């Protein structure tokens, strides 16, 4: 987590790996003031390497391939991985080595943000 605007507070770092730039734009807006968002394109590149460098608390992807390439990093390094399907509005969360469908409306950036923040809070307080 990084230093937040409130003295002593830290903000979670969220990596957005999006194939649709306007999805990244929407999610960046939704997390404003709540997280430090790092947005990266999904096409090409070494996803695991980028994530090792960023060391995010959560990873959000909008692309099946990016989801699969980010999963091994999350398995070994920890953190939260969320896959938002732009096509059908479903959201999957990767935890305990498996994907689970989340009961949220994936077409709404606020719902995705609430899911991610909720998961992060539970991890901190667990």
């Amino acid at each position, binding site marked *: 987590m990084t230093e937040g605007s409130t003295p002593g507070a830290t903000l979670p770092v969220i990596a957005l790996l999006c194939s649709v730039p*306007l*999805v990244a734009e929407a999610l960046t*807006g939704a997390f404003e003031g709540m997280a430090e968002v790092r947005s990266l394109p999904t096409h090409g590149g070494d996803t695991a390497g980028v994530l090792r460098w960023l060391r995010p608390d959560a990873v959000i992807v909008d692309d099946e391939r990016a989801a699969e390439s980010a999963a091994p990093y999350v398995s070994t390094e920890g953190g939260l991985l969320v896959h938002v399907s732009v096509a059908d509005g479903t959201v999957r969360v990767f935890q305990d080595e498996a994907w689970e469908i989340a009961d949220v409306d994936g077409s709404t950036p606020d719902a995705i943000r609430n899911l991610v923040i909720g998961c992060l809070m539970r991890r901190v307080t667990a």
Partner: protein
Amino acid sequence: MIRRRVLIADGAPLFRSGVRHLLTREGDFVLTEAADFDELTQAMEDEAPEIALIDLDLPPSGGVAAVGHLAGQSAARLVVWGFEAEREQVLDALTAGADGFLDKTISPTGLMRALRGMSRGETPLPRELVTVVVDAVHDFEARDRARERVVSLSAREREVLALVATGARNRQIAEELSISEFTVKRHVQNILQKLNLTSRTAAGAFYRTSSDGAVTAGEAV
């Protein structure tokens, strides 16, 4: 600074939010949002936007139908956007009255460039769709030229041509039209001469171009 009015009509809040966040940051556009066709028509009346960005899948009937309804009624420049749109969808949108087409995977920079260009009267089209549109214009022109030449044929010759295009032989055409095989042969010769074609195959191809493959033998008369 003049802030131009943009309307986004999209059933997905994710995209409306993305555009809202982008335009708020850039500052030279004022945004109105609509989630479906009813909200779109209401917003067009209330806000009179200069540019309307309409989703290809706008509920309930799609963006092309919405553009068809709005084109000619509104001074707004209408742009349809969608995911991996097929050639026919793009052409349908433009034919319905859209002033441009954008892919929803467009970058924020690209979208801003497109919106600012539209304010100057430009037509936004992704590079890969420009070829589609140019090809379509050529197809339309070829069809128009072919239709002009078809006018020189008699009604009976058009019937024969339509059957030739189906691959029918002279005997089959004769039976279908209740005329002699010799008469069919003469009609075919006249058709080739009038259309300046050298073979039945060429005549069939010509017919398909002139009718876009949609006209049956009976309708060709």
